[in-house]
């Protein structure tokens, strides 16, 4: 059994002041809808710091979300933001990314949205190496609809539709992403805000399909039903259990309650993006004229050529 701790009282109430990354937030949409202790605020905040570090603005980056608690992130970002249908964020983002190859497309959504209803789109976008970054906040359940079990719920954990405990095998998300061809795969918890921000920076800058899993508390639903305490208790668990293993084989990164939480940058490799392969194999070989849309800015290149069929190291 894990050591149970209770959150200490907050020592002092901080005076109200502007969020340092207010320029990236739609202040007229706040306060947000998320529960106290949820990791989504941290994930959103890390993302804005990552954009700031990269000096990216509304003309450089757009965010696409699906449905669910994480799906609401798009609506709080003061960027071009597209809040689509359940599971279809990656498919929508595919159209956006091929239409504007000089811009950065980020899909920010939850584990149920991306890997249950949207799982097919995830694996095929990764296979095609569409130039986009997928940030998945994994809170192990469907929070928005009331705490049902989902594709990442550990065996034995309870949800409102798993009253006797979940008996389905969950996805190991980094392993899934790596298997499908993602060129960058990392996992951090919402406690690791600095490392998470750095992973977001790396993922956004890397051409191709990049993936970051953000392990996050859901004290209202998942945490409460599984006696994990409040949000701070879950963060303490992350502090106690997280083990950084850069370059670890994602097969070893299963998330099992009571075991170590393997975090780090697991995959960082290069292979041609969808549009690079398209240009190299079709446009250039057939001597077609490169479309104008490619000429508007510094077109992102992976440095890889499409002559090989396998992913590079």
């Amino acid at each position, binding site marked *: 059994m894990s050591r149970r701790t209770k959150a200490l009282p907050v020592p002092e109430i901080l005076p109200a002041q502007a969020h340092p990354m207010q320029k990236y937030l*739609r202040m*007229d*949409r706040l306060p947000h809808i998320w529960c106290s202790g949820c990791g989504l605020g941290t994930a959103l905040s890390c993302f804005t710091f990552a954009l700031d570090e990269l000096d990216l603005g*509304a*003309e*450089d980056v*757009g965010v*696409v979300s699906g449905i669910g608690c994480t799906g609401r992130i*798009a*609506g709080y970002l*003061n*960027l*071009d*933001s*597209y*809040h*689509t*249908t359940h599971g*279809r964020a*990656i*498919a*929508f*983002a*595919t*159209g*956006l*990314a*091929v*239409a*504007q190859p000089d*811009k950065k497309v980020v899909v920010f959504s939850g584990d149920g949205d991306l890997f249950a209803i949207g799982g*097919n*789109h995830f694996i*095929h976008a990764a296979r095609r190496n569409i130039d986009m970054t997928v940030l998945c906040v994994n809170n192990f359940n469907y929070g928005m609809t009331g705490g049902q079990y989902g594709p990442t719920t550990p065996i034995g954990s309870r949800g409102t539709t798993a009253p006797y405990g979940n008996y389905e095998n969950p996805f190991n998300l980094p392993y899934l992403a790596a298997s499908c061809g993602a060129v960058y795969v990392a996992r951090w918890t919402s406690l690791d805000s600095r490392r998470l921000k750095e992973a977001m920076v790396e993922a956004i800058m890397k051409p191709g399909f990049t993936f970051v899993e953000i392990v996050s508390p859901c004290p209202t639903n998942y945490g409460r039903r599984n006696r994990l305490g409040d949000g701070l208790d879950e963060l303490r668990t992350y502090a106690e259990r997280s083990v950084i293993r850069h370059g670890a084989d994602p097969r070893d990164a299963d998330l099992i309650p009571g075991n170590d939480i393997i975090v780090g940058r697991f995959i960082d490799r290069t292979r041609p993006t*969808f*549009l690079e392969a*398209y240009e190299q194999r*079709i*446009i250039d070989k*057939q001597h*077609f*004229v*490169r*479309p*104008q*849309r490619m000429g508007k800015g510094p077109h992102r290149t992976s440095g890889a050529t499409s002559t090989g069929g396998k992913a590079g190291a």
Partner: protein
Amino acid sequence: MAERILAGTHFLNGDEACAEGALAAGCSLFAGYPITPQSEIAERISYRLPQVGGVFIQMEDEISSMAATLGGAWGGMKAMTATSGPGFSLMMENLGLGLITETPCVVVNVQRGGPSTGLPTLVGQADMMQARWGSHGDYGIIALSPSSPQESFELTIRAFNLAETYRLPVLVMTDEVVGHMFERVTIDPDAIELVERRPPNAPPGEFLLYQPNENLVPQGMPTFGDGYRVHVTGLTHDERGYPVIDAATQAALVPRLKEKIARNAADIIDVEETEMDDAEVVILTYGISARTSFGALQAAREKGLKVGMLRLRTVWPFPEQTIVRLADRVAGFVVPEINLGQIVLEVERIVCGQARVRSVPHAGGDIHDPQTIVTAIEEVLHDVS
């Protein structure tokens, strides 16, 4: 370098003509999934789009095809997808997203027999009510119906133009026979008129994404990265595009989505009248069924029957005023369609007992024997004599 517009006279099937129409209209993204009898559209456009700077992407299913089409549209492209019945069903979800986010794009349905897998290689027209009502919730829709390869070319261009004008996904409801029928298609680039995307009418900060103009259509559409910081959501939203989950916002948005089509119906509706001056019976039909109906019309005229034809090139919105006007002066309507009676329901509703309305149903897999239509005409005339 190949030309975007395939000028001249060509021998094309309806699917190929549809693909060429998309190119001529300025389509630069096609996202689709293979399905019979649509595949010739995807095959042709996968060959042609790279020649002219566009992108073809074969998605993993029709759900993602529709979603990527919408994404491409917000990325600034004219975008299209094409499918048949089973794929059309899968597209209904994101068709709704396109309708509530007022995203211009084109969806082609080369209809085959249903339900389910039905008759993959054989004709049907049984998706006409799905075209009107298939996605959940209330909305207005535009659906065009070509009767020939030439019209497949022309109506695909018109679909792109209507999509830009009225800011919604526009449906081209063709069918297996029109799709696979080879005929002469004449393309005159000088005769093609295109509607381009309206840019925002105000700078960032002042622009309201969903503020309607006098036609109830949003004022303009920023492209991803233009600096407008748009928020586009499938939730009920206000004029800024921000989600507002209450009855008042719903009442401001959803009736407008329906009304922007109804109010502009006169501009959208396109019907062809044949031998209507002295007609006592009107054949009301569309798509391939108009071709068989023309044979029936000629046969009936040879028998001395006063028959005309009203052919719907736009099925939705429905030409209510034309039918109301006709119902006052003709004895009846005969409605052949390759389904068990779909559009005939709309005719019955509008005619409202003022004239006879007779369905000429066909379960699919084949086109009508024109004699069945002639018989229906004779029965209507017999009933009223």
